[in-house]
């Protein structure tokens, strides 16, 4: 029974990390920036929502406003940091260092403004337990997480394949040089992508902490799992990133049957090593 509950928990958390992986993959495929600071944007979303809820803003508007905040921060990172570095032809290593710097700044600003300790959301609907047949239990936040994240994933896929902007983004992703000489304006597209991905990552950024609470440095481990999912799924495949995120988190959860939770990072990393050795291009590489 425990195994089934862990499986369900895995799918729930996996869908959250799936959205994080998809948002990261959007950025990476389009801008080629390994946006480590995405972990900071993810964390920031949760803190913004927490603040708004504490000021008496109802839950849904708080989520939307938090997403808006993430959009602003994500776009600013592109406009003020990655954009100028790109124009200067900075090496990949320098962009990575800048991104790491942005992560450190966001995390520690959060720690300075709030506190380095865990913050809990006030008790609300999220903690309500819904018993399911077979002895399974789902909390309100778990149900919300699955529903919101699967919808967000579906909408992202539809957006990428059905809308004009989505097609433009995929065009920039598949051939930046051609995009440059046509009228696709890759630089502007990069800002759009960062905005969209920052809004997306805010969803798991808010929903996750409803359950576990907030921590300024809590974004790095989820980001590691999300990036591993992206690589294992195959760069360029949004569906692959999402599917692998769910699969990895399910495995992490099932591993709890045989080892304590402190070591789940080891499970994640072992999965990465296996992929690197056997299938470094990922499962679904090549599909746009």
């Amino acid at each position, binding site marked *: 029974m425990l195994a089934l509950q862990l499986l369900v928990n895995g799918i729930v958390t996996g869908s959250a990390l799936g959205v994080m992986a998809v948002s990261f993959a959007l950025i*990476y495929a389009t801008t080629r920036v*390994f946006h*480590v600071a995405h972990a900071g944007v993810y964390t920031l979303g949760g803190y913004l929502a927490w603040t708004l809820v504490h000021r008496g803003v109802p839950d849904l508007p708080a989520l939307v406003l938090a997403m808006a905040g993430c959009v602003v921060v994500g776009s600013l990172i592109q406009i003020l*940091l990655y954009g*100028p*570095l790109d124009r200067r032809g*900075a*090496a*990949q*290593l*320098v*962009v*990575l*260092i*800048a991104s*790491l*710097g*942005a*992560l*450190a*700044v*966001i*995390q*520690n*600003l959060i*720690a*300075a403004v709030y506190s*380095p300790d865990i913050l809990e959301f006030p008790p609300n609907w999220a903690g309500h337990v819904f018993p399911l047949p077979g002895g399974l239990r789902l909390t309100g936040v778990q149900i919300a997480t699955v529903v919101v994240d699967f919808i967000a994933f579906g909408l992202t896929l539809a957006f990428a394949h059905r809308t004009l902007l989505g097609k433009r983004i995929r065009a920039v992703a598949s051939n930046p040089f051609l995009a440059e000489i046509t009228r696709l304006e890759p630089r502007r597209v990069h800002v759009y992508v960062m905005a969209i991905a920052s809004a997306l990552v805010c969803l798991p950024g808010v929903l996750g902490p409803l359950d576990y609470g907030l921590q300024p*440095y809590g974004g*790095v*481990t989820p980001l*590691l799992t999300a*990036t*591993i999912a992206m*690589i294992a799924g195959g760069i360029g495949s949004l569906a692959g990133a999402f599917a692998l995120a769910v699969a990895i988190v399910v495995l992490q959860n099932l591993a709890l049957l045989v080892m*304590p939770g*402190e*070591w789940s*990072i*080891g499970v*994640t*990393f072992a999965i*990465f090593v296996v992929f*690197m050795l056997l299938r*470094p291009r990922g499962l679904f590489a090549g599909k746009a």
Partner: protein
Amino acid sequence: MDYFYSYLILAEIYTLLGLSTNLLVGVVGIFSVSQAAVFGVGAYIVGDFLLAGTLSFLPALAVAALACILLNVLISLPSLRVAGDYFVVTSFGIQLLATATFTNWTAGTGGANGMPGVPPPDLLGLPIESTRGILAVTTVATLVACLAFWLILRAPFGRLLKAIREDESAVAAAGKGVLSAKVSAAALAGAFAGVAGGLYATYLSFIDPSSFDLDASILLLTMVVVGGARTLAGSIFGPFLLLALPQVLTFVAIPTTYAATARQLVYGALLIAFALFRPQGLLGERL
């Protein structure tokens, strides 16, 4: 005076780490946020041996260096196989895994409570208890490492590493092997970090996971970025400057609970500023 000695000792230990990180990040161009993990392995190994009394200081230091050579080679192996960005994942993964191990493997590391009572270093059975004695030991180690770094940079081996940083395919087309050079550089970087770890553990006599976490790795990277890539002067200047920073921050009235946060905030800002405006650091070459 002791206060100043203690600053010198720590700055020298971090110079060893700066050289290690500069070799990987500045010279070979491998992004790394896991050098603090290697540093930690060195520290815990020396701590364990000295506490158990099974080895004296120098043999323990040699074992630590050897273990860190192996570890660093293992860590950098994926960078031989996969493109640059993927290696970021490896590096973050190793760092987080190491922190998990340092924190949770209580038998080997003392866990989150740390490892107290590591004996001072000894030479030929004579314990070195005084701060000045330890300063002499770290100074010798640092001078040796600086000499090694300098020799490597001016040798054909250094030229090969710099070329690898720029274009691995062109190096192969010039008839040179990329793999063995990268592995050798990683091994050297591991040895530096391992020795630094052993010195750190014996000097402070207490170590805990917080000295070897992701933030510590970010500090090491900041030292290289601020000091400057691929020069000896940069590798020394970065650590000495950045370790003086906390002393400066104490003049600004920041509550002690926020001191660590303020430091990391400054490091982050420095990384951004140097990436944007001075990629060659203060005394180095362009990253």
